């Protein structure tokens, strides 16, 4: 009897551990997925000031941006006047750039996707807000912090074996109300390469959202790129003909 009950006890402990383990894993997956969806929305329109800061040099661009789902996005520079009308269209893995002065569209080779966008610290891939962080990584909550009285989950994301990613690890900070606070990118040796942090959380576009995003390379203290949302609207959908080459050439609408 005694032996039997001990066995049952340990079996139930084991079952409980396994169950809670998977439950826990699913919870983290859901948390990350929900946070990405919250951050991205179904579709969005925004006007952003992008400030590129370098030692002894700084430059600010104003960009109109449209995004739809994880695949389609379009950016058009509206200021300074010299660069007005320069645009970038991204559909899935393909990307085009348009310059109004020469009135031509250039298709970017895939090898350029990890290059910086317009000389900033954001790569073309960063702008895409892709599903990669959900699909290609396994997540684990490593600790919790508090921020403005709310719980913040620190999540360590390791790439799945064979996932086509460039990072060796990512570390996410997600607040319990699904707001992304930071995303850190590590290389294969688990050294920090660059980090994106969101600050000034405000009501914008109908929900709480970090108004300012800063992307900074780890080894360069006085080089960073800052995005500040002037306007942000989340939408249910955007018309498909917005994300076409002809709309890239006529960004007036």
């Amino acid at each position: 009897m005694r032996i039997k009950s001990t066995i049952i006890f340990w079996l139930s402990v084991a079952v409980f551990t396994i169950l809670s383990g998977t439950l826990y894993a699913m919870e983290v997956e859901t948390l990350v997925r929900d946070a990405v969806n919250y951050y991205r929305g179904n579709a969005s329109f925004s006007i952003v000031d992008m400030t590129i800061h370098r030692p002894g040099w700084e430059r600010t661009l104003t960009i109109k941006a449209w995004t739809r789902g994880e695949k389609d996005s379009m950016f058009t520079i509206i200021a300074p006047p010299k660069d007005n009308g320069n645009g970038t269209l991204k559909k899935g893995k393909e990307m085009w750039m348009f310059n109004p002065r020469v009135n031509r569209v250039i298709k970017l080779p895939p090898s350029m996707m990890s290059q910086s966008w317009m000389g900033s610290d954001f790569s073309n891939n960063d702008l895409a807000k892709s599903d990669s962080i959900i699909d290609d990584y396994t997540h684990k909550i490593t600790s919790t912090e508090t921020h403005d009285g709310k719980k913040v989950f620190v999540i360590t994301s390791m790439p799945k074996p064979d996932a086509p990613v460039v990072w060796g690890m990512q570390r996410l900070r997600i607040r319990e109300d699904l707001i992304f606070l930071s995303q850190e990118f590590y290389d294969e040796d688990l050294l920090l390469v660059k980090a994106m942090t969101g600050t000034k959380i405000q009501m914008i576009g109908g929900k709480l959202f970090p108004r300012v995003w800063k992307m900074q390379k780890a080894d360069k203290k006085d080089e960073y790129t800052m995005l500040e949302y002037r306007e942000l609207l989340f939408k249910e959908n955007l018309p498909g003909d917005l994300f076409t080459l002809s709309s890239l050439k006529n960004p007036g609408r």
Partner: protein
Amino acid sequence: MSIEIKMAWRNIWRNSRRSVLTILAIVFATMLLVFMLSFQFGSYDTMINTAVKIHTGHVQVQAEGYRDKMDIRLVVPDPAAVDDVIKDIPGVEAYTARTNAFSLVSSSNRTYGVLLTGIDPEREPRVSTLKKLVRRGKYLAQKDTNMALVGELLAGNLKVDIGDELVVLGQGRDGSVAASVLKVKGIFSSGEDKFDRNSIQIPLGYFQDVFSMHGAVHEVVVLGRSLEDVKKIKQKLEAGVSSIDNDGNPAVLDWMELMPGLVQSIKLDLVSGLIMYVILIVVIAFSILNTFLMAIFERTREFGVIMAIGMTPGRLMKSLFLESVTITLIGIILGIISGGMVTWYFQGHGILISGASELLNQYGLPERMYPQLSALSVSVGACIVLIITILTAIYPVLKVRHLRPVEAMTAV
């Protein structure tokens, strides 16, 4: 003439066949070393000159840190002031200015990342071979604007020919978007794949417009009359440039700093050459040691006799040593003459290295190589042979010291 010298001279020609063979071994070794060293130094000269003429010039003035980062914002703001400094430096053959920017270049259906270089169409040919490398179409003219010279491999990749259009998209010095439509005017081929695959040359003035350079350049390129002038030019340039009132000191770099890869490959080649020479010299040293040893052992009886009639071991050693030294000197002098003549012939005619042209092209080398006869290449080889032969000659001579006349006379 002392008796020892007389004896040494007579002993050499007493067995003339043996002496001639020994001399020939030395002649051959010296000749080979003179030729090989001249050939090696000659190929280095060709490598350096070719590379210097295609890319870097002998000395460059750039903004501090530009070489490592190639950042378009790191500029020499006032190239005219640098030109004024260069003008007064003796030993300068020619100089020009260049600008560079990494850009996207796109033909109707292909896009590549390319190094776009702005060149002064008039001054560039005096510094580099670019004008001669234009194989099809024409070189740039002074008043050209959106004309481009495209590397042959790049033109193939982009699938463009003379007269076709290329769209360029990059970032200007002020961070703005730089865009332009270029027309292919000429196609160049340097033979160096890397250069032909990713570079486009456009007129400097047009580059400065498109990339908002405001008159600034990235490199002021100086070509000296010869490699030997480089050090002096660099020093004078450093002194002169630091007196120009600039924000931030421009850096003065010579070709060794501009092309560390070239310097390393020369060092590597020199070391592998050195190993070859060591092996060659060891083989020759042993064959000479052998003949010297034989020459003394087969005369043991004779030494016994002359020592018995009063020759001291010291004088005998002196005479034998003089014998070896004379043979060595004759060999080396003949070797230098014949080696010099062979080298001189090929210096005029060149050596065709057929079948290795692809390998050579990677280093930008021509198929025909020219050895370069110099005081260094002649003397180094000869000196090494001299030292080794004399060292080998000492050992058998020292053996004579222990000869006892009575025992020696009875030796077979």
